[in-house]
């Protein structure tokens, strides 16, 4: 077997950071070529660390990583984008963190998934441009699709028949929308309006900025959010921590 190179390059987005010992951190990075992986950033919590600012969560960086016995070690880092517009806006930060947590929870380590990487980069850029929660909804639906969980929204997920233009049951168990006659076999779910069904179909067709450009009344946005959250919860079998933050931040905004 040929010896593996001792260092490799990766371009990726820092998903999360946890501290290790006195001054080190373990970072979880989602990279284009390597997939999701963890590595150690040594002395990165010291003021004079040269890599510190380049390895913050929610930073897209070019990295040089050395293979270690257990964990790999970052040896160089250079920011591609720090998403300043996201960082300096509370609502945008909340949306972006939710997207990062989605990626972190759904992906296995060391599986290169360039399509999902491109999707995440596009989502962060769209949030940076002020796309807001719509970008997150678009990201959720597309992420589910790329992971193989694309909901069936064209016809009935049980009988395959056409869906009349009326509210339908979105059933995670059957994997999509269910017509009224198949409803008893669908094993629960959430009834979604015609408007939301159309939004889901539209999100599948267009990119994040185009979807974010769509004006949505607040209650429709909430309905879409609840529908997608239910799919995510079903496949992940848990709630996302960041969703509580998104809610809390939104509640403050409405109060103010």
């Amino acid at each position: 077997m040929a010896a593996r190179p001792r260092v490799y390059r990766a371009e990726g987005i820092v998903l999360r950071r946890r501290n290790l010992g006195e001054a080190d951190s373990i970072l979880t990075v989602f990279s284009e070529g390597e997939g999701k992986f963890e590595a150690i950033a040594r002395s990165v919590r010291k003021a004079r660390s040269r890599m510190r600012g380049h390895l913050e969560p929610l930073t897209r960086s070019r990295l040089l990583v050395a293979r270690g016995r257990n964990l790999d070690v970052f040896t160089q880092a250079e920011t591609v984008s720090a998403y300043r517009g996201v960082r300096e806006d509370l609502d945008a930060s909340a949306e972006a963190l939710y997207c990062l947590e989605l990626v972190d929870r759904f992906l296995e380590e060391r599986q290169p998934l360039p399509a999902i990487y491109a999707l995440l980069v596009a989502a962060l850029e769209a949030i940076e441009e002020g796309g807001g929660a719509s970008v997150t909804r678009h990201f959720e639906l597309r992420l589910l699709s790329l992971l193989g969980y694309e909901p069936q929204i064209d016809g009935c997920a049980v009988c395959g028949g056409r869906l009349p233009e009326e509210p339908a049951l979105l059933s995670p168990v059957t994997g999509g929308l269910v017509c009224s006659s198949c409803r008893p076999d669908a094993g629960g779910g959430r009834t979604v309006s015609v408007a939301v069904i159309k939004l889901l179909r539209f999100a599948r067709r267009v990119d994040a900025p185009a979807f974010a450009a769509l004006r949505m009344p607040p209650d429709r946005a909430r309905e879409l959010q609840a529908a997608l959250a239910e799919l995510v919860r079903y496949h992940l079998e848990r709630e996302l921590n960041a969703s509580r933050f998104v809610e809390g931040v939104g509640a403050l905004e409405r109060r103010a």
Partner: protein
Amino acid sequence: MPATSAPEPIVRLVQEFTKLPGIGPKSAQRLAYHVLRAPEDDALALARALGDVKRRIVFCGTCFNITERDPCAFCTSDQRDRTLICAVEQPLDVLVVERTGGYRGLYHVLHGSLNPIEGVGPEQLRIGELVQRVEAGGIAEIIMATNPSLEGEATSMYLQRLLQPLGVRVTRLARGLPSGADIEYMDDLTLSRALEGRQDL
């Protein structure tokens, strides 16, 4: 007990040391045997210091800094500007700000920063208590001195949104180049903020 294992008090001490952060089983053993060899006075002084820390140190009921008396010396002092509160993440940060000698206001220790992904929310921090202090009146400005990290910034922005409607001025520390840094290795975010905050020579 097998004859090869150490006497019970030593084993117990090793176990206690192992609970400390960054101390593995080997380091714990070394520390335990060091204590064993050290003069009895040193060992007892250590034991007393440990006991005192837990018995005599409390959190100030106003600013949540660590103190021997509640309310703490900052909160009861008439030498300090009582219209000014500096919000920090940790008690250690208070010492660091004090060391600059340039701040004469009060403090508020949040005991952490918001970390949405790890599930640390506002209710785990002393955020509600800071809001109460502002609501009680007499506060003109809150200086956010959280870390310039993603979590620290989120905490500052969250508090700003919470406090602004109460009619208090919310500021945050300037961001720029640390002394002794290399521009060559500076991240874009810090450098661009430093550029925006440049000053006449």
